[in-house]
């Protein structure tokens, strides 16, 4: 293991180190009592780690391929890292207010968040199925724990259990897939998979890999955990997992399908198209009449997974470009939406019903504005990043000749507007006598401002981010 290898993996290392520092700091500062919540320092440490990782991510490594060819830090990895770090950074900013209010163990929380981010990035950097598997597990174990972090909340515990059991179930299929691919191809190296003839055994292996990744991305029919876990998990954890799991899963999809198996595109593309279609329809339809915002956003995230899968199912540079752009925009807009919810509280509980939004405009107009903006973006309407992202994906679909896919995508987008705008209108609609008093929090304010600005920036001036991900795509060819 050379220093060069460590240099290539520097963002992950920085995050890992930061996670340990946070844990140590937490143990040092708060002493034995978990009940002592005053651990704002942990948050800042985590944020510093994320910032440093972001900085390091900006510099391409001298030798992209590292760790004996198992790891690669190319432009694609950079783009995935960017999405993951943006999501993590905003999450870290969003969390302190909530953690203090609900007395959750801050040190563990931040450490878990950072570990999970490492997992997602690792999936983006995987050049070997083992690394992909490790990334997947590093990504998901902290998430199981985060979901169950509120130890006295039955809902949180239920969320943790369901996530864990179903996650383990899914993982088993993934590992079996790894085994079968290895058996069929004789190698775990993704870069050498391209030349392997497509035997039924390989096909079954690939199918099982799909299941593991699809579970993490919450693709139908591997999605069933998502609504329950999203609803039950503590809000910041939900926010974080909604983003980071998608980043990791789609990084994995990119590494496995368009990059490792281009020759078999015709075969897996058809399967993924079907999955994407079902996912978009299911997610959007099930979200229609949800009254709980977390649950609504869960189904929304399922639907978005379906959209992103378009970029995989319609392989080619346009698809990859679309997925990467979408991941970044999705991280920003989804966290913006959750961020506003974090501000809400009713009698010591999360106020996560749509009805709780009534009167938000009167109490916190800017927060309501950001929520509305994020909803507009999630709905894929201009002039927000959500629109440009969808535009790229639709372009990919049509370019690949998947007209049905594109049609389902746009029509389900129309359906989705129904629930997104209902939320936006509820947030903006006047004053209500028993309006929830939104908490004030500087860090959340900063996070929301960042998210709002990002959504608009990616929507109105998309050229910078487009150029960035375009480079990632071109570098792969």
């Amino acid at each position, binding site marked *: 293991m050379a220093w060069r290898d460590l240099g290539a993996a520097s963002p992950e290392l920085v995050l890992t180190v930061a996670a340990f520092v946070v844990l140590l700091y937490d143990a040092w500062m708060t002493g034995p009592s978990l009940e002592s919540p005053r651990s704002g320092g942990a948050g800042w440490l985590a944020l510093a780690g994320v910032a440093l990782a972001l900085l390091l991510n900006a510099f391409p490594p001298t030798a992209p391929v590292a760790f004996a060819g198992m790891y690669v830090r190319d432009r694609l990895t950079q783009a995935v890292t960017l999405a993951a770090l943006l999501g993590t950074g905003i999450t870290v900013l969003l969390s302190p207010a909530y953690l203090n209010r609900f007395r959750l163990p801050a040190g563990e929380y931040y450490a878990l968040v950072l570990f999970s981010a490492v997992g997602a990035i690792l999936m983006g950097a995987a050049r070997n199925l083992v690394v992909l598997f490790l990334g997947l597990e590093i990504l998901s174990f902290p998430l199981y724990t985060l979901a169950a972090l509120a130890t006295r909340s039955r809902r949180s515990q239920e969320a943790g259990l369901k996530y864990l059991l179903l996650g383990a179930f899914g993982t088993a299929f993934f590992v079996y897939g790894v085994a079968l691919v290895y058996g069929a191809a004789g190698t775990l190296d993704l870069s050498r998979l391209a030349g392997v003839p497509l035997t039924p055994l390989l096909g*079954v292996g690939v*199918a099982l890999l799909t299941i593991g990744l699809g579970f993490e991305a919450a693709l139908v029919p*591997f999605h069933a955990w998502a609504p329950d876990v999203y609803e039950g998990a503590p809000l910041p954890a939900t926010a974080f997992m909604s983003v980071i799991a998608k980043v990791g899963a789609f990084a994995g999809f990119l590494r496995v399908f368009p990059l490792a198996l281009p020759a078999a595109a015709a*075969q897996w593309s058809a399967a993924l198209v079907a999955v994407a279609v079902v996912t978009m329809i299911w997610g959007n339809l099930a979200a*229609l009449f949800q009254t709980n915002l977390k649950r609504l956003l869960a189904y929304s995230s399922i639907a978005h997974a379906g959209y992103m899968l378009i970029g995989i199912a319609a392989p080619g540079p346009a698809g990859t470009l679309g997925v990467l752009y979408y991941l970044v925009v999705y991280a920003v807009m989804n966290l913006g939406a959750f961020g506003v919810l974090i501000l809400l509280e009713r009698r010591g509980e999360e106020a996560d019903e749509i009805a709780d939004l009534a009167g938000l405009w009167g109490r916190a107009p800017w927060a309501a504005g950001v929520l509305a903006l994020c909803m507009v973006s999630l709905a894929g309407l201009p002039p927000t990043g959500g629109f440009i992202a969808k535009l790229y994906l639709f372009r990919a679909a049509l370019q690949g000749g998947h007209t049905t896919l594109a049609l389902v995508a746009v029509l389900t987008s129309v359906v989705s507007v129904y629930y997104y705008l209902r939320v936006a209108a509820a947030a903006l609609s006047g004053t209500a006598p028993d309006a929830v008093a939104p908490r004030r929090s500087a860090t959340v304010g900063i996070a929301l401002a960042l998210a709002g600005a990002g959504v608009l920036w990616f929507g109105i001036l998309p050229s910078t981010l487009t150029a960035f991900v375009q480079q990632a795509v071109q570098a792969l060819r």
Partner: protein
Amino acid sequence: MTYAVWIPLLPLLGWVANGVAGGRWGRRGVAVVACGTVVAAFAVGLAVLASLSSLPAGARHVEVDLYRWMAAGPITVPLRLLVDPLSAVMVLVVTGVGALIHIYSVGYMADDDAFARYFAYLNLFTASMLTLVLAGNLVVMFIGWEGVGLCSYLLIAFWFTRPAAAAAGVKAFIVTRLGDVGFLLGIFLAFGVWGTADFGVMTRDAAAHLPLGGAAATALCLLLFLGACGKSAQLPLYMWLPDAMEGPTPVSALIHAATMVTAGVFMIVRMHAVYLRAPLAMDVVAVTGAVTAIFAAASALVEPDLKRVLAYSTISQLGYMFLAVGVGAWGAGIFHLTSHAFFKALLFLAAGSVMHALGGTTDMRRMGGLARSLPWTAATFGAGALALAGIPPFVGFFSKDQILSAGFRHHDVILWIIGLAAAGLTAVYIVRAFVLTFLTAAPGVMRTPGNGDAGGHGAPHEAPPIMGIPTLVLAVLTLVGGALGVSFVHPGVLARFLLPAVTEGGPAPAGSEAGAGEGVLVSVSVAVALAGILAGWLIYRTGTLRGRSDAVRALLSRQFYVEDFFNTLVTTPGRGLAWAFDLFDRDGVDGAVMAIGRMIGRGGGWLRRVQSGYLRQYAAILLIGVIVLLAYWVSR
């Protein structure tokens, strides 16, 4: 002759002034502005006539282009006025009669709250009517055509708080608009034929562009005639005019007798060169006119309402005019138009005086014996009645006689016989009206002031001079107006003056020829009129002639069920269709859309039930996915 533009412009300015600031300068100011502008327009009209007369006969066709109104694609429509003998005559009729009625109105409307509004409308009407007659092309004519329709609507519904008046206004607008569809299509067809709707071009090039009796010419003429039917209340679009009597009486005199309703006749004369290319259309015009003439005269026989009698009379007389132009007697048509303007305005103004005296009553069954208290009114009404009946030396005699003789010479004796019969009926109904109003002593004369119409108080009394003098002037015109077209010295003054305008593009009109046996025809028509008067007198005054048929009476009082027929066939199905559309829109079109929405929603509800909360079920769902995927891959 650019100054001719002031003729419509002056009343228009009067409208703007009274419309914007009418409330500021009081009734006197309003009256001065309103009457002054019309009188001034009359003066300008005289000047135009003078300078037109000074031109050689062949050059009496002056086009005044104001500016390019619309130009789109290959179409250019200038805002063009056409000054020729025809428009000059019409200008004088409109402004002359108009000025008299304006002045009369000052007295008639003196107590009305909406004095300024009334005169604003009246001025706007005058301006529109002058635009109509001065128009240099069909499109500009359409400005006036629709403008007078608007004013007609506004003035019929002037007392809009009365539901009947409001409804009558709407009816008038809708029915005339129905005709205007034809007019518009006629314009489009004209553009199709000539690439323009300019009267000068159309008249000059009619023969070149339209084969004689061709489909285009016939369609064009019939379409325009449809417009004329609506505006001039001919069958089958007559039904708005009797209802229009809901308006103030001077309005009925000006718009629904003297000027607007004659627009159709004027338009056909204006387009005579085109009509000459379509003999079939000419025949349709003539027959429609003749049938309307006798139909309306018969309807007037049983009408109890004085003003509605006059309305049917107007319809009938307009029928005569169409009969005239239908047989190519352009001059006779315009002559009768002029003469009708005089005597019918006179009749209306006299009727207005009656109403003024009786506090707004128009029901003849509640009148009678008014000759004693209203001698002047009775005399002037009588003059008008005689003119209407066609008794020499009143103007109506000359004009009607010209039409009848033209009809006779137009190889079709049937038209002449119908016209003659209508003339007899005319004499009967007008005698009836005169007798019922002025002679028969009614059991109880209505004396209580009605609401709305001119307010008279106490015992019936003569109208003030400001109303009396215009009536008198019209009576004098009725008496001496015949000089314009004394038929014994064919062609008459008017006809000779009109000749250049109505001969361009066509042969000399039939009405101007002196024919053999003229004396016989005249004698017959006078005899018929006298017989009608006698019959009327015997029926209604002395009661000598009796014997009535309830069936005939019912037929006449429902105007031969034309309107009922129209309602059953057009109005009621139309309403039903509209409501059906409404229902279809909500339950059919929108229902389909909403059904899609509901379907999607139901899908969402079902998917929510799948999310049951049971972990093992989730695992099962996942497994189904696994199995499907594996099946797919294995089957590859």
